[in-house]
């Protein structure tokens, strides 16, 4: 598919959002802005205001590295008409680019971004789903199923969902596509029980209520044994009842939730109607996720391209496809990819698992613009055959057309998806960072999966990469599903109590790694996005503490180098607050824990009493934001420019504050269009008053 046929990745979406935000507002053009600026400059000069030193509230306008013009020091807000005026008084709400029907509350407070408990709850539910639902399905996959007709298969699926009966649901999915999940899901079920993510692996959906009502369908025969079932009506009701969830997930602040989806209106990808493809196997009808996905891809493609006809369903003959050995299947796949031989690549996918060969016309059409440009310098494949399955270990390297290199196996460094051209300008960077392969894939694919699921980019990895193969009709095929599930297996295998604690922020069951004294750095030995260390300390009620982080490297390309953070946790595991940026006020006298999450490069961590912290530890914003167990609050007072309370007077809101000359400045803030008065009471006792108005 070309670029417009796919959904943007979160990275692309973020960049696109930034670009759109950067172009917001009403554009007057450089000449108009410049002309208004000249008039404004003349006005400023005429008024004799100190526009270079401080604005009305004493905040420095002038960039510190550059000296300002020497002009008289007074303070005050200047006013004029829109297009000729100071920004302070000429502000009108911008028209949003594309207003939504639903209002969005905007938090402009600038307070720190904290992970809400709801998000942790969602993470918990997600983890439960990943580890638990699968287990249920695993047992289900052992049973025989199938419905008597295509629509019956869909109705059976809907009923199974309504009954929260995953066993019945899996029973109507195409066996060849579901069977390969079995081992992965069994492992997941075991993990879910082990870590109390679900109370009963056989009933993982307890607490989540699905209800499908009024389902209506239309059936279109695609070929003998293949049917497209379009959902023409029905409502899905999904409710989460926290009391039914496992206590460990429930305690993460899950709130009752209810959502209703009208199936007739919801539609599928590309604004197509909602449909599934059902296939007949051994006399029973099953819902086929693979054929459904391919058919959606074809219909979406056909919306704005030369239409690709429907495939010849069920014509793939394994005996005439695939490769003679597992090794040659892997080598052929790489060579087909390099040579843009999409038909050959499609021949190497198992027909019963992924019907890309039958959809090869679509694959070729959608891949027409793809021109893989790489060379292979070395490519080693070693396969171990076990009956009709094989595992191939691959390693290799080569060059990319853009001058970069690729590598599979061996050792991959941290990748830098936001790399700038140069890292050498980072103070403290030290020796130049060695050039990393542009594309590198090495061992622990499960670990990479986790990193990519939850964060940007990927962390370091090493070891061989394995590819799973299956044999049908005496021929060998590369199995994408089994290979992906192998990565999932690695992830599930790597899940341990500490990982679960990090995801759920539930540290109750973790023994502290030691104690920490305020002001005394501790060496942090762990590394990793989901690693952490816990230290205990004694604190007093009202005492403000803040963390200081020292990182091993200062390479701005390392996305995780500076992502370490620290949370204050009660002994029972409840997270009270974050001390990464702002001082946190301890609520009571007692024993606390600080959970330090190191990212990839934290070397030492110091917990300071905020009043003893060295300069620079307390964040720039901390004069405006304070945090305690109830959250963060914000004040506009700063030590440099104390601000008194604003008082509502007959003429408007009167705010008094001081400029850096010690002058008391009074500003009456009134709605746009009303007169604004600025009074400056000089330290010497003299007083000046200015008053002007804005055009409505």
């Amino acid at each position, binding site marked *: 598919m070309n670029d417009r046929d796919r959904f943007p990745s*979160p990275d692309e979406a*973020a960049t*696109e*959002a*930034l670009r*759109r*935000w*950067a172009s917001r*507002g009403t554009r*007057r053009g450089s000449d108009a802005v*410049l002309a208004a*600026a000249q008039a*404004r*400059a003349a006005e*400023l*000069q005429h008024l004799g205001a100190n*526009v270079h030193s401080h*604005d*009305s*509230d004493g*905040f420095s306008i*002038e*960039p510190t590295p*550059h*000296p300002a*013009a020497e002009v008289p020091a007074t303070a005050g807000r200047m006013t004029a008409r829109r297009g000729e005026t*100071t*920004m302070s008084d000429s*502000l*009108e*709400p*911008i028209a*949003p680019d594309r207003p*939504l029907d639903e209002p*969005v*509350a*905007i*938090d402009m407070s*600038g*307070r720190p971004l904290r992970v809400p408990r709801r*998000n942790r709850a969602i993470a918990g539910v997600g983890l439960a789903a990943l580890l638990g639902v699968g287990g249920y399905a695993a047992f289900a996959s052992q049973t025989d199923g199938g419905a008597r007709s295509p629509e019956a298969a869909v109705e059976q699926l809907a009923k199974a969902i309504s009954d929260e009966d995953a066993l019945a649901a899996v029973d109507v999915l195409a066996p060849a596509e579901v069977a390969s999940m079995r081992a992965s899901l069994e492992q997941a079920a075991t993990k879910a029980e082990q870590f109390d993510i679900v109370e009963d692996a056989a009933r993982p959906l307890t607490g989540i209520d699905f209800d499908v009502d009024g389902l209506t369908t239309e059936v279109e025969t695609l070929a003998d044994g293949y049917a497209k079932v379009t959902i023409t009506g029905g409502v899905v009701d999904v409710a989460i009842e926290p009391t039914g969830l496992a206590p460990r997930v429930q305690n993460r602040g899950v709130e009752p939730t209810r959502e209703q989806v009208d199936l007739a209106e919801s539609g599928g990808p590309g604004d197509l109607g909602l449909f599934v493809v059902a296939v007949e196997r051994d006399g029973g009808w099953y819902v086929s996720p693979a054929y459904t996905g391919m058919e959606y891809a074809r219909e979406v493609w056909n919306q704005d391209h030369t239409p690709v006809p429907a495939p010849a369903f069920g014509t793939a003959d394994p005996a005439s496809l695939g490769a003679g050995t597992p090794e040659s299947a892997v080598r052929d796949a790489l060579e087909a990819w390099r040579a843009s031989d999409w038909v050959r690549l499609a021949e190497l996918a198992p027909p019963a698992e992924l019907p890309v060969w039958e959809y090869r016309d679509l694959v070729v059409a959608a891949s027409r613009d793809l021109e893989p440009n790489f060379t292979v310098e070395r490519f080693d494949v070693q396969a171990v055959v076990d009956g009709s399955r094989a595992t191939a270990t691959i390693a290799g390297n080569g060059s990319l057309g853009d001058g970069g290199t690729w590598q599979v196996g061996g050792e991959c460094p941290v990748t830098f998806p*936001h790399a*700038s051209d*140069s890292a050498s300008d*980072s*103070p403290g960077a030290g020796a130049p960072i060695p050039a990393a392969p542009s594309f590198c894939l090495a061992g622990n694919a499960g670990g990479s999966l986790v990193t990519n699921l939850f964060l*940007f980019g990927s962390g370091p990895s090493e070891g061989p990469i394995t590819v799973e193969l299956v044999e049908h009709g005496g021929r060998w095929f590369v199995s994408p599903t089994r290979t992906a599930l192998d990565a999932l297996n690695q992830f599930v295998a790597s899940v341990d109590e500490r990982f679960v604690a990090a995801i759920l922020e539930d540290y109750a069951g973790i023994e502290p790694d030691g104690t920490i004294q305020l002001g005394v750095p501790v060496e942090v030995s762990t590394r990793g996005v989901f690693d952490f260390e816990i230290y205990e300390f004694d604190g007093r009620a009202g005492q403000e503490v803040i963390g200081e982080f020292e*990182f091993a490297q200062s390479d*701005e390309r390392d996305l995780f180098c*500076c*992502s370490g*953070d620290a949370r204050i946790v009660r002994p029972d595991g409840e997270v009270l607050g974050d001390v990464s940026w702002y001082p946190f006020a301890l609520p009571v006298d007692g024993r606390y824990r600080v959970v330090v999450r190191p990212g990839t490069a934290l070397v030492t961590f110091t917990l300071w009493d905020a009043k003893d912290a060295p300069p*620079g530890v307390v964040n*720039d914003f901390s004069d405006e934001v304070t945090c305690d167990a109830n959250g963060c609050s914000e004040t*506009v007072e700063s030590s440099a420019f104390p601000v008194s309370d*604003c008082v*509502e007077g007959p003429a408007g*809101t009167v*705010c008094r504050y001081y400029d850096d000359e010690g002058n008391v400045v009074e500003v009456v*803030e009134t709605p746009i269009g009303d007169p604004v008065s600025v009074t400056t009471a000089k330290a010497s006792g003299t007083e000046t008053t200015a008053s002007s108005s804005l055009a409505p």
Partner: protein
Amino acid sequence: MLDGLDGLEYRHDLDEFRALYEPTRRFAAMIGGHDVEPDDLVQEAFARVLLVERSRIDDLGRYLRRIVANLAHNERRRLRRKASATARLGDDVATIDRYPSDLSDLLQIEPRVRCLLYLVDVEGEPIAIAADTVGMAQPSARMALTRARRRLKATLSEEAGR
């Protein structure tokens, strides 16, 4: 050349300002409040700079950005004070704005950090320079960037999944 400012000889080449209008405007859009017109910030920054002797400014683009950043910060403080005063008066009128969801995601990021994101991730500026431009310490900027990216990705992923 700029003429007409009595008694000032801080002559500027206006083409320099015209060339810097677009990048300065983008910067103003990023760092300004949601209800602040970028052009208003640019205009005020231009006006301030026009009163400064050109020879005293090394890098006009960065200088303008710093002024814009400071103006935007000032404006936020003023609005917060006003909001605070309004709250004390018992006025429960809330400010509710409507934006496409991805833009409202950006709005939830502290403006200076949002601006950092733009400078580093879109314009490709080194963090050291970007941090200085928005008036943040480098370590704070690095941490802020990492978290903002993480948060933005998580939010956008959530939305993509809906």
